[in-house]
C-alpha cells in the first residue's frame, strides 16, 4: 500500500485526500519511509519527520472540519536547502553556514506552508547552488536514482540535484528548487522528472540564500506537467519584500493547462542550439519532440538566436560577479562558521578559506576579478551587453513563434567524479538552459525518453515573459506524446 502512495502524482494524491481514500498522515508516512530507505542516495541534508507528521495531522484535522487550504494541503514535498526555513537549519550545503537556523521563513516555503504542504525534509544541493552535478556539496554528492546500464553511481545534476532525485526516488510528490543557470531544469532532465524555471520575478527571492540575484528563480520539480502547474500556482506572486518580484497577476495555471491544447501554436527550433559533440540520440530526441508538437497541431519552424554562443561565457561572468558580492556576508562575524585568527583579516581568511569549498572559492575569485578596476568594462560590462543582445534575440524570435524547443542538456547523467577536474566541461552542462536565465524567460524540462544506456533525457521549452501558461501547455503536449514511463533503477529495485 505504502509503495502505491509514493507512486501518485500531486493531483492524484489530492483527489484521494479529497475522497478520504487516504489521510495526509498515511501519505506522509509512506514518503518518510521512502526517504529513509533512500538514504544511500544522500538526497536530504536534513529530514524533518516529526514536523512532517505534525503538519500532516494538522492537515487531516483541517480536512475533517471542512477547511482545506488548497491543492497542496497534506501533500508531502521537499525543499532545497537554499530556502531559509524557520526552526529547521539552512545550510546551502556549505560548511560556512554551520549551525545556522534562520529566524524567518522564505516567501516561497512560507507559501507552501500556508497552503498546507507537508515538508519531509530539506534537500542536498551544490554548495551555494554552484554546480551542475551536486558534487560540490559539503555534505557529499547525491546519487542519481537512475543507473541505467552503466552500473555506476551517476550524478543527479545540479544544483537542485537533491530535489530532482527526491522526486525521482519517490521520497516526496513534489519539490522546490532554484534555477540560476539551469539548476532546476538540468537535474530534472538527468533524473527523468519535470522541472520548471518560471519567469524572473514570478516568484519571490526573499529568504532564498542568494547566488546570483539577477538570475536566481525558484520553481517546482514534479513528476508531471500538471503537478508543476499546481505547485507553481502556490509559490508564485508579487512580494513587496523583493523589489525584483513582478506586480503581475498569477493566472490559474492548472485550469489554463486543462483548457488549452497546442493547435495553432508556433514552435521555434533555434539552429544555433546544434552544438558540436551533442550525442546523436539527443539530436534525434529533439527532432522527435518537434514532430510530437506538429502532430498535436502546432506548426514548427526554424529560428535564429544569433548570440547563443556567447550566452555561457556571459553567464560565467555575471553569475560569479554577483556571487562574489552576495557571499561577502559570510564573514564569520554574525552567524555560521568562524575560524579564529590573529587579526581580523586572518579571521576572514581562515573562515572563508575553510568555510567555502573549491568551486565556491573559484567563483568568488572569478567574480572578484571581473569586477576589479581595469577589468570591469572588459568583462562585466561586456557580459551585460551580451545579455541584452541575447534577450533581444528571444524578443525577436517571439514575434514569430510562441515557444522555443531545445534539448535540456547536452548529455545524460554522467558518473560521479567525472568532469570534476574540468570546470569548462562541467559548465557546458548549462549550455541550453543558461539563455533563459540571462533573458529572464520561463523554461521547463520534460522527460522525453531514454538514451541507449537507459538514462532519461529531457526536452526543454522556453516561452515569453510571464507566459508560463503557453509553456506548460506545450510541455503537456510533449509529455502526452512522449509517454515517458521510465522508473529509476533505485525505485525499481525496491519494488
Amino acid at each position, binding site marked *: 500500500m505504502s509503495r502505491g502512495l509514493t507512486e501518485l502524482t500531486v493531483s492524484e494524491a489530492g483527489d484521494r485526500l479529497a475522497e478520504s481514500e487516504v489521510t495526509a498522515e498515511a501519505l506522509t508516512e509512506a514518503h518518510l519511509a521512502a526517504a529513509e530507505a533512500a538514504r544511500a542516495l544522500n538526497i536530504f541534508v536534513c529530514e524533518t519527520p516529526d514536523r512532517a507528521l505534525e503538519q500532516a495531522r494538522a492537515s487531516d484535522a483541517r480536512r475533517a472540519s471542512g477547511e482545506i487550504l488548497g491543492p497542496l494541503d497534506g501533500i508531502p514535498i521537499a525543499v532545497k536547502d537554499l530556502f531559509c526555513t524557520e526552526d529547521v537549519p539552512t545550510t546551502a550545503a556549505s560548511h560556512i553556514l554551520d549551525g545556522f537556523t534562520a529566524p524567518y521563513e522564505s516567501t516561497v516555503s512560507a507559501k507552501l506552508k500556508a497552503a498546507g504542504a507537508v515538508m519531509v525534509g530539506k534537500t542536498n544541493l551544490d554548495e551555494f547552488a554552484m554546480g551542475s552535478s551536486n558534487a560540490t556539496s559539503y555534505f557529499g554528492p547525491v546519487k542519481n536514482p537512475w543507473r541505467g546500464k552503466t552500473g555506476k553511481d551517476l550524478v543527479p545534476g545540479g544544483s537542485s540535484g537533491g530535489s530532482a532525485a527526491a522526486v525521482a526516488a519517490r521520497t516526496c510528490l513534489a519539490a522546490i528548487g532554484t534555477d540560476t543557470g539551469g539548476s532546476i531544469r538540468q537535474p530534472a532532465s538527468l533524473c527523468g522528472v519535470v522541472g520548471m524555471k518560471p519567469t524572473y520575478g514570478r516568484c519571490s*527571492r526573499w529568504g532564498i540564500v542568494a547566488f546570483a540575484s539577477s538570475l536566481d528563480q525558484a520553481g517546482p520539480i514534479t513528476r508531471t506537467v500538471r503537478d508543476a502547474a499546481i505547485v507553481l500556482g502556490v509559490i508564485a506572486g508579487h512580494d513587496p519584500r523583493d523589489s525584483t518580484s513582478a506586480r503581475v497577476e498569477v493566472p490559474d495555471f492548472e485550469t489554463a493547462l486543462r483548457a488549452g491544447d497546442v493547435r495553432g501554436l508556433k514552435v521555434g527550433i533555434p539552429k544555433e542550439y546544434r552544438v558540436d559533440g551533442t550525442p546523436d540520440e539527443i539530436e534525434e530526441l529533439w527532432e522527435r519532440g518537434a514532430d510530437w508538437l506538429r502532430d498535436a497541431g502546432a506548426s514548427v519552424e526554424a529560428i535564429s538566436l544569433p548570440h547563443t554562443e556567447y550566452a555561457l561565457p556571459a553567464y560565467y561572468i555575471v553569475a560569479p560577479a554577483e556571487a562574489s558580492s552576495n557571499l561577502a556576508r559570510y564573514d564569520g562575524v554574525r552567524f555560521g562558521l568562524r575560524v579564529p585568527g590573529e587579526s581580523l583579516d586572518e579571521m576572514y581568511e581562515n573562515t572563508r578559506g575553510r568555510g567555502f569549498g573549491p568551486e565556491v572559492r573559484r567563483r568568488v575569485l572569478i567574480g572578484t576579478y571581473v569586477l*576589479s578596476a581595469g577589468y570591469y568594462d572588459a568583462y562585466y560590462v561586456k557580459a551585460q551587453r551580451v545579455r541584452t543582445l541575447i534577450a533581444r534575440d528571444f524578443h525577436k524570435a517571439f514575434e514569430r513563434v510562441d515557444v522555443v524547443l531545445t534539448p535540456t542538456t547536452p548529455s545524460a547523467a554522467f558518473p560521479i567524479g567525472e568532469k570534476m577536474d574540468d570546470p569548462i566541461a562541467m559548465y557546458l552542462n548549462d549550455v541550453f538552459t543558461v539563455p533563459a536565465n540571462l533573458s529572464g524567460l520561463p523554461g521547463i524540462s520534460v522527460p522525453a525518453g531514454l538514451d541507449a544506456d537507459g538514462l532519461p533525457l529531457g526536452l526543454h521549452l522556453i516561452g515569453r515573459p510571464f507566459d508560463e501558461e503557453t509553456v506548460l501547455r506545450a510541455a503537456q503536449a510533449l509529455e502526452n506524446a512522449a509517454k515517458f514511463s521510465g522508473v529509476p533503477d533505485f525505485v525499481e529495485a525496491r519494488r
Partner: protein
Amino acid sequence: MSFAIEGEAGAWEVVIGLEVHAQVISRAKLFSGAATDFGAEPNTQVSLVDAAMPGMLPVLNHECVVQAVRTGLALDAKINPVSVFERKNYFYPDLPAGYQISQYAQPVVGEGTITLDLDDGSTREVGIERLHLEQDAGKSLHDQDPGRSFIDLNRSGVALMEIVSKPDLRSPEEAGAYLRKLRAIVRYVGACDGNMEQGSLRCDVNVSVRMEGETELRTRTEIKNVNSIRFVMQAIEYEARRQVEAYETGEVVVQETRSFDSGRGETRSMRTKEFAHDYRYFPDPDLLPLVVSADEIERLRADLPELPDVKKRRFVDELGLGPYDAGVLVAEKETADYFEAVLAKGARDPKQVSNWVTGELFRMLNMRGVGIADSPVGPENLGRLIDLVADGTITGRIAKDVFDDMAESGADPAVIVKDKGLEQITDEGAIEAAVEAIVAANPDKAGEVRAGKTKLIGWFVGQVMQATGGKANPRAVNTILLQKLRD
C-alpha cells in the same frame, strides 16, 4: 576674500572640495523598516536586512528619495529621472553585507549651485558636483573590552545623502561658509537635522595647493570625517601649509587619506594609495533603477519652503532690511522663523524687530549659551515688548531692563512694567521739577554750559534719567533741559 600661503617660491593657492554626509530625516532606514532614532541601546534598531542575514533583500524607502530630491531642488540641481544603486564592496565587521549600497555612476541628483554668504557681506557661487543616496555603516566599538571589538548595527543602513562640491573653494573661510550654508539649506528643507556633534552631518575634506596662476590641479589629499566647522577650517589651514612645505622642500604630496587630530590641530596619514580599496562597484541586482517622475519632481518643487537666499532677498526688498542683517536673520532657519513670528502680529517695524533679534536677543542667548529654539523669551513676548516701546509706554532704555527681567522670569513684559512701575514719565511738570532740582544742585556745571561747553548737556540728561529711574521721556528731558540751561 583672498587666501594665499606665501612660500619661498611665491604665493600658493589652496583648492578645496568638500564631501558632506548628511543623515536623512526619515522614520525608517534606506532599505529596511528599522527605526533610526539617535542614542538607542546598541543593536536595538536592526532589521534582518540591516544585519545582512542570508536571503534578505533591500526595499527602497521612498521617503528618503523624497528628501534627497527636495535637497537637490534646494541646491538648484538637476534631478536625474533615472538613477542606479550600486554595491561598493569591502570587508569590515560593521558592514554586515560586505558591501554598502550607494550610488556611483548615476546619482539621483546632478550638478547644482550653492551661494556662499561671506563675512564681508559679499556672496560667491560654488558648484555642487552631485548628491547621492547611500547606506550608513554600523559602528565598531574598540574601547569596551581589551581583547575584543563590539559592533553596534543601529546605524547600519541609515540613509545618508552624500553631497559633493566642485573644487571651487579657495580658503578655510569659504569652506566654513559653504558648510554653514549647506547646513542651513538641509535644515530649511527638513532633510537633515544638521547636527555635527551627533554625527548627522559629517565632512570629508579634499585639499590640494598650487602656485598662483597654475591652471591644473595638483595631487589632493582627503581628510576624513571632520566633525565641526571649526575643525574643517583648521584642518584645511594645516594641510595646505603642510603641502606647501612639502613642495618647497622637494618632497612629493601623495594621494592619500588623512585624519584630523583636533587636539594637536594636525592631519595625519591613514593609508596611502597602495592600500587603497578596489571597491568593485556594480549595479545592485536586488534593486531596480530608481525612477523619479517629472510630476513628482514638480510636486516636490512646489512644496519646498522658502529658502534662505529667497528669504534674504525678500527681507531686503520688502522689509527694507540691510543685506547684512537680512543675511544674519536667514542664516539659521530657527532665527528666521523667530523673526517672522515676531513680525507676524501687529504692525511692527521690521527694522526694530531685526535690531532686537540680532542685538539684545542674540546677546542674551550667547550669554546663556542656549539656542534660539530654547530662548526664555519667545517671539510673542518680544513682540509685546517692542510694542510697549513703540506706543510710548516705556522708554528704550527701560525696555532693555525689562528684557533682562523677561529672560530671567519668562514673564509678560506688560506685567513686569506694571508691577515695577516702569511706565514712561511724560508729565512735563514732573520732568521739569526733576530738571530744576539737578540744575540747582550743580550751578558750576550749569554755568559751564551757559558759557558754551555744550558737551556737558549729555551729562545733565544722564543725571535726570538717573533721577527718574530711566523712566522720563528722553525727548521731553532734552527740551526742558535746554530751556533751563539757557535761562
